């Protein structure tokens, strides 16, 4: 029970702890980095460097009144916020953090990720519809449409990686990047996946589901207290997940670049994974600070008319080259 291998209880607890603590810390990290990017300091009052800001924020959310509007569908309204953290946490089951660290080595890992990402759309959709509010409904519809359409070519862009890695198992995909990261042969796939990842997590610049300047707060307009907190934390877990998936799929996961290993493989793996994940978290925050939100029709056009053909082309060419080399 206490051995440290993939799927042991200790390992599961470790991964869960890392994910939850990181997601909570992201509340603070995001505000702080956003502050720096706009030449402010961000929250730096609570604890050293404001590190305890997340605790203060969560304390505020928990003690707030948990109000269900009388016109809402009570059951769906209460269930919806729980869906998104559950789906996002389940996605982490297949993400390998380092050699021997991870919850499980599912041989359909990539499909599992896509399935969980698709299910997470239910949270926004149910929340939007059950709120019985036109802005929430619009937000929910947008979230559903956006998630489903970007899911399509997110999957297709991943197929290039799957062809090269010759596996749906994320751990084997990482291992197959030992002699070269997939960012080089799969650059188009990487670009498509990153854009789709931004859209999939409903983060800026693709935050059309809750675009504040148009539809108040979208699907979570009516939510307050910890129900809103679950949406909030779910979004951060999603962002953390995407920042881990991009390195795992395209940047060699825990593998050190140029053989710069530090200590034993598990330590080195964790350190490199942390560095790579931090970079992509920074990228997500930078994208929020810098990029402007497209209109909804622009988002859909971009998805179906640019990203989808691009990812199909990428898949076609990758497949042809692999077949040619294999013959």
């Amino acid at each position, binding site marked *: 029970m206490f051995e440290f291998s993939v799927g042991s209880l200790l390992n599961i607890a470790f991964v869960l702890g890392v994910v939850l603590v990181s997601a909570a810390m992201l509340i603070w990290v995001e505000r702080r980095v956003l502050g*720096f990017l706009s*030449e402010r300091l961000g929250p730096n009052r609570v604890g050293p460097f404001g590190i305890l800001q997340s605790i203060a924020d969560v304390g505020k959310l928990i003690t707030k009144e948990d109000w269900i509007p009388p016109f809402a569908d009570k059951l769906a309204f209460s269930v919806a916020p729980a869906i998104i953290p559950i789906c996002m946490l389940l996605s982490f089951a297949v993400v390998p953090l380092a050699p021997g660290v991870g919850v499980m080595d599912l041989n359909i890992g990539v499909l599992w990720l896509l399935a969980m990402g698709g299910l997470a759309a239910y949270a926004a959709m149910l929340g939007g519809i059950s709120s019985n509010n036109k802005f929430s409904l619009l937000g929910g519809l947008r979230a559903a449409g956006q998630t489903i359409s970007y899911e399509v070519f997110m999957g297709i862009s991943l197929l290039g990686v799957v062809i090269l890695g010759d596996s749906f198992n994320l751990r084997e995909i990482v291992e197959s990047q030992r002699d070269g990261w997939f960012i080089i042969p799969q650059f188009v796939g990487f670009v498509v996946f990153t854009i789709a990842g931004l859209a999939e997590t409903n983060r800026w610049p693709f935050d059309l589901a809750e675009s504040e300047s148009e539809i108040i707060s979208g699907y979570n307009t009516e939510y307050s207290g910890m129900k809103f907190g679950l949406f909030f934390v779910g979004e951060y877990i999603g962002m953390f997940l995407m920042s881990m998936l991009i390195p795992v799929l395209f940047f060699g996961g825990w593998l050190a670049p140029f053989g710069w290993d530090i200590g034993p493989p598990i330590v080195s793996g964790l350190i490199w994974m942390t560095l790579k994940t931090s970079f992509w978290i920074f990228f997500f925050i*930078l994208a929020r600070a810098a990029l402007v939100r497209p209109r909804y029709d622009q988002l859909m056009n971009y998805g179906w008319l640019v990203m989808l053909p691009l990812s199909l082309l990428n898949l076609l060419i990758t497949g042809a080259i692999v077949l040619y080399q294999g013959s």
Partner: protein
Amino acid sequence: MFKALGKQLYVLWSQVVTLALVGKHLFQKKDTVEYPDVMPYMFPRWRGRIILTRDPDGEERCVACNLCAVACPVDCIALQKTEDEHGRWYPEFFRINFSRCIMCGFCEEACPTHAIQLTPDFEMAEYVRQDMVWEKEHMLINGTGKYHDYNFYKIAGKSIGGKGKGEARNEKPPVDRRSLLP
């Protein structure tokens, strides 16, 4: 087709350029002034906490003319005129409700004797609303504020104890209207 592809690539590249330009701000000097630790520079003409000043002789400048109370757009000033044994007018009470005051400075502009003045102090938060009602003894200072030499009764023609008609600065003695001689 290649034209469309080139346009899409250009769009994507412009997003990357935006990211880089915004990312550069990470290393720039921060504009934030960490207020309670570092006090910001307050300009001398800042309209903050209201004070009542005294003339150079140490007497209250306020003559209770009520012009400030009339000028006040939110009606936060209340005062009552009274007179001392020398004939000087002064306010019996002078009350400003700072929970209403909008620091517009109209009272300072209206004041004919430079008695009421606004200062650069802005730290006036209170826990109890009633504490924001300030009386004369809270606002009266032992100085002249922004105008060091001005002394209303030394200039005005009104006679008070110790200063008769015609004794004010730049004032001629009163004309005897019953005499024809200049």
